[in-house]
């Protein structure tokens, strides 16, 4: 038995924001009650959460764990340890591994490795097409049976409108989520950052915002045609957000996520430092503003990290040769607090929702603090000062633009299935 005492429980599912004690029994929540009301015996382990926020376990809808195939950049073990330090209790891992997770045996391999080595729950996402090549549909039903929670060709979009339509039709019949990396690859060809004054000044090839929004427009219309559940990954452009807003107003089953780096940084921050290179690239000032509005007004369903580790040898190269992607797990909560909560734009309740019930709804599952629910909890501070030192990260990679930044608040403990897997 583990008793979390005196914490401020914030649970969007039940709209709770109050001092509560939470008793965990094995891998389930046993009881939630007003502070001091739960009887404890000597065998009960106590975690004093005085002054801390106790929230349902945070879910990351979008991460790259690099195993199998790119273990020099990350493994399921190192990635999930970093996730635990960042306060995540479950991460959805994208299928662009080597080999691609496009069949049930790769899915099972990932789940077996997770069982043996992972700190947090690992929910694999399967490829939509064989090899994510955009030619033939992958064996989605077999992967679903093996345990995938969604399909995506992330890293790139599902290649053609026709294949997207077929994947959506098929996934609708399987009641499976389709996650789209929205990008018109012809408009984005050769680009290494967002097109704008900064890319023009730096002489770096840029992709226009339309490279994303053109594809989102295609996909929401195909979601309407097929009735599929579509989730737009790492949405970065104002025009894309407007497409999602339109889709939601029409009652389509369309959701979207935004990354912390897109609501924190902009294209003007790029200075030939490859730690600022990711795809979609950092957007314009007005896009960032629109994303924050979308986080406030509910158009955005989840904050997801797009944790994309690349070992230093790959990333320490000329800007245009460096691979896209940055680390995300350990800076997601702190950036959300810094950019959204401490600035007064979001309530803590809404921020917690974007990491818990928000992504849970996208996946079609429940997430709440109540008796009988899985004992997954994220405990964090909103006040404690903390400086991010990427050299201390359990991740195998170091590609974060937020290294050495000081934050107010951050993860204190992460509990998965009743076990404290991380405690600062």
């Amino acid at each position, binding site marked *: 038995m583990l008793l979390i005492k005196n914490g401020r429980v914030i649970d969007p599912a039940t709209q709770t924001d109050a001092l509560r004690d939470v008793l965990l029994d094995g891998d389930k929540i046993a009881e939630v009650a007003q502070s001091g009301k739960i009887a404890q015996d000597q065998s009960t382990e106590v975690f004093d959460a005085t002054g801390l926020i106790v929230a349902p376990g945070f879910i990351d809808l979008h991460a790259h764990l690099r195993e199998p195939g790119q273990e020099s950049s990350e493994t399921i073990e190192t990635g999930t340890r970093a996730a635990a330090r960042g306060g995540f209790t479950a991460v959805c891992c994208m299928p662009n591994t080597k080999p691609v997770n496009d069949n049930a045996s790769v899915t099972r391999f990932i789940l077996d490795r997770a069982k043996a080595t992972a700190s947090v729950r690992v929910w694999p996402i399967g490829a939509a097409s064989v090899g994510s090549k955009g030619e033939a549909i992958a064996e989605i039903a077999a992967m679903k049976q093996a345990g995938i929670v969604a399909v995506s060709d992330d890293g790139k979009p599902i290649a053609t409108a026709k294949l997207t339509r077929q994947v959506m039709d098929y996934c609708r019949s399987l009641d499976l989520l389709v996650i789209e990396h929205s990008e018109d690859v012809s408009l984005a060809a050769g680009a290494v950052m967002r*097109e*704008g*004054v900064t*890319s*023009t*000044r*730096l*002489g*770096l090839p840029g992709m226009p915002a339309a490279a994303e929004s053109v594809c989102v427009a295609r996909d929401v219309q195909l979601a309407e045609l097929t009735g599929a559940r579509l989730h737009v990954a790492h949405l970065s452009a104002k025009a894309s957000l407007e497409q999602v807003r339109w889709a939601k107003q029409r009652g389509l089953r369309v959701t979207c996520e935004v990354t912390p780096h897109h609501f924190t940084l902009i294209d003007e921050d790029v*200075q*030939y430092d490859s730690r600022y290179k990711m795809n979609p690239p950092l957007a314009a000032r007005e896009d960032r503003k629109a994303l924050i509005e979308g986080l406030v007004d509910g158009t955005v369903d989840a904050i997801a990290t797009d944790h994309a580790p690349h070992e230093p*040898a790959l990333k*320490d*190269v*000329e*800007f*245009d*040769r460096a691979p896209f992607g940055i680390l995300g797990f350990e800076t997601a909560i702190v950036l959300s607090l810094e950019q959204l909560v401490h600035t007064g734009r979001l309530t803590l309740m809404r921020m917690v929702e974007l990491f818990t019930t928000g992504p849970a709804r996208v996946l079609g599952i429940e997430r709440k603090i109540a008796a009988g629910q899985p004992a997954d909890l994220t405990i964090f501070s909103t006040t404690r000062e903390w400086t991010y030192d990427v050299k201390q990260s359990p991740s195998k990679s170091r590609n974060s633009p937020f290294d050495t930044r000081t934050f107010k608040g951050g993860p204190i403990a992460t509990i998965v299935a009743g076990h404290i897997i991380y405690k600062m």
Partner: protein
Amino acid sequence: MTYRFRDLLALEPLSADELTFLLDQSRPFQAIQRNPLKKLATLRGKTVALAFFENSTRTRISFGTAASRLGADTMNLQAKSSSVKKGESLLDTVHTLNAMKPDCLVMRHAASGAADFVARHLDIPVINAGDGTHEHPSQGLLDALTIRDRKGSLANLNITILGDIAHSRVARSNIHLLSKFGCRFTLCGPAMWVPRELESIGPPGASIRRVFRIEEALEDADVVLVLRVQTERLHEPALSAADYILLYQLSAERLRRAKPDAIILHPGPMNRGVEITPEVADGPQSCVLEQVTNGIAVRMSLLFLLTSGPAEEANPQSAEAQPKESANASD
């Protein structure tokens, strides 16, 4: 006034005073180019590494000649013959070069920001000899020197740039330098080569406008900078060579729209008959050969300034004092 940076990576961060200082520093070296004996001993014992990761003839020879006229030794790395082809990373290559203890690295690279990236990892001065489509600072300086010699001053000139400005590091360095002296820019070329964002890349208050008709763009120009049309870009489906010539070739007839004393610059190598007619290229208004000579003077002054170390203030007098000494040098 001194130069406050260890490297020369771009002209954008430099103030008008710093740019004037760099141009003034080049003056004594211009005089040396007219001497029968051009070799100094100023940098004797120093080594300049020339790392050209992208094909270049004139800039490489110009820097090499500048180093040699200062008495420095050079180490040459050319992409074709180097380990770059064998898959070595840029960082490993320059660390290897640096281990041979040069006093300065001059580099050209196809990636924008490559010199900036290398400078962050090395402890010797880095001179950017052209990085992708970003900047070509020594070219910007030699263009300004040429303009200043011909016009007497850089203040408030009308500068027209013709061609593929989006992909031109020469255009960017010129805009960053000349804008700080109140020059007004007219950028002219096909729309996909002259994106709207170019109007905003200059310092605050810079006057940069886009014009799509060459006749209008040349109106009242004091200086016309003609860019090389990269023939590989003409093969992009957007534009044919014939259309380019029809719309944007600088001919004597079109040049009459400019001021009568307007001068023509071209960073070379020229495609005669494409972006410029032979008549204009060889005409009295053309400064292309002066640019080449001034290039050596500018590069000598940069090498002198950056390799004599930050403690010693670069001093034109001492540079001028050197020729006599070195004229007797027998190496």
